[in-house]
């Protein structure tokens, strides 16, 4: 039996939840004050996912040299660093619109990296 401790982020109470696993399947969830905590804990323990945000370099921009980007949905937590690696050295040219795809299907997650800001071209 394996126990995993986590903090629920559902509300400011921040319950300490203990999930007990046996052969990778959940045996029990304890410590949550409300059902939301259990849902959260089950997801966190079996398939945690996160949105990743970062920047890439943008050329000919009328403003900053950084273009903010994000994954257009959550990706498995374990792929965060390979996603960051994929973003290294990426350079795009202005103009860019919010929502433009910067990398398709990043690291085989089925999720695209998109621009989160509109950047005009420096004329």
């Amino acid at each position: 039996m394996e126990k995993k401790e986590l903090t629920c982020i559902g509300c400011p109470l921040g319950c300490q939840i203990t999930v007990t696993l046996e052969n990778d399947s959940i045996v029990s969830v304890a410590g949550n004050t409300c059902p939301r905590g259990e849902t959260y804990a089950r997801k966190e323990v079996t398939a945690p996912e996160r949105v990743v945000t970062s920047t890439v370099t943008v050329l000919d921009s009328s403003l900053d040299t950084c273009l903010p980007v994000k994954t257009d949905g959550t990706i498995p937590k374990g792929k965060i660093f390979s996603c960051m690696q994929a973003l290294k050295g990426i350079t795009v040219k202005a103009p860019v619109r919010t929502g433009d795809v910067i990398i398709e299907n990043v690291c085989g997650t089925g999720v695209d990296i998109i621009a989160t800001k509109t950047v005009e071209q420096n004329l």
Partner: protein
Amino acid sequence: MRSENTIVIIGGGPAGLAAAISAKKNGAENILILERDRELGGILNQCIHNGFGLHTFKEELTGPEYAGRFIEEVKALGIPYKLNTMVLDISPDKTVTAMNSEDGLFEIKAGAVILCMGCRERPRGALSIPGTRPSGIYSAGTAQRLMNREGFMPGKIVVILGSGDIGLIMARRLTLEGAEVKAVAELMPYSGGLKRNIVQCLDDYGIPLLLSHTVTDIRGKDRVESVVISEVGPDGSPVPGTGKEYECDTLLLSVGLLPENELSKAAGVKLGSTGGPVVNESLETGIPGVFACGNVLHVHDLVDYVSEEAANAGRHAAKYVEGLSRGEAAKTAGQRTVDVVPENGVRYTVPVTVRPDRMDEELTIRFRVANVYKNIFVSVYLGEERVQHRKRPVVAPGEMEQVTIKRQDLLDRPDVKKITIRLEEE
């Protein structure tokens, strides 16, 4: 420039943008946003992480996306704005003095002014950390700007003092970009940041959060070489002999935000316990026609509330200039005013006074508590009568609270002169 009915909005961050949009939609014809930066959007331009707009748009946006939606609306509504324009002074008669390279130094005699200047970070000077003053010490917000807008990495091995949201967000950002964040030290026995940020920015990456700890020494000649982190006793001072040295090249300070008050002070606006201006139900300061909203009024953790508050300020400003054109300004004198009093664990309220004649059917009063309290009741008194008594599993200084007051309840009680908001054990 003379434009007696112009609403001048100082600052083009989320507060300024939402105030402008709302003023326009409520009938104001002449609006001008003055922004010192080279783009609109304020601090959100550097907040590239997601977590904005859950309340407003029911989706999680990044800072630039959230700002972008408001910027587009401002443009679509044809609201004029001036960038690269620094407001230097506001006089008590609402003359706004500003400067940019196109117009030089110019003055606008405004009909109404909305203060939307945001906040600034508490500088290191305001804290007294002993030790040398090498390079490699940044405020967390400065580091955020350097990384996210200029693409400059502030350091490789980092210690962060203060566990407010900016510090937590930066711990993750630095880690993702390859830096090693050794620890986040927090003076208080609890973090001022959102739970979600503690989990997703620290726990996810195994970064230790040292509660009741502080930096007691900074070492290094030209560049930071290490810092000493010590335990803090119940009295708030470091416990001798508990110091531990952490080698690092960078120290980030995330030790709180303060409303940007220079201009408010110049205008003669009275400041209160939020650190920002004292306002009434219409978000109007002590000077009629000067309104305040967003972080300049009180530091918000959720931008959604900034937008909501600013929309109210914009609406009231529009009403005010409309009244001016009908010669109504003087009428406010002699109106019934009810004080809103924070008590027993409630640190401040916004607003500070309420005029029942002027308020909407319902009014949201926002407040912060002074400490972490579990299983506590939030009570509202109208005069001596308790009208609300709501049990809360937990309240914390890091999360803004609110109660709603009904206009009718005040009209039904003409003798009530004070609304008290307090925490009660039972």
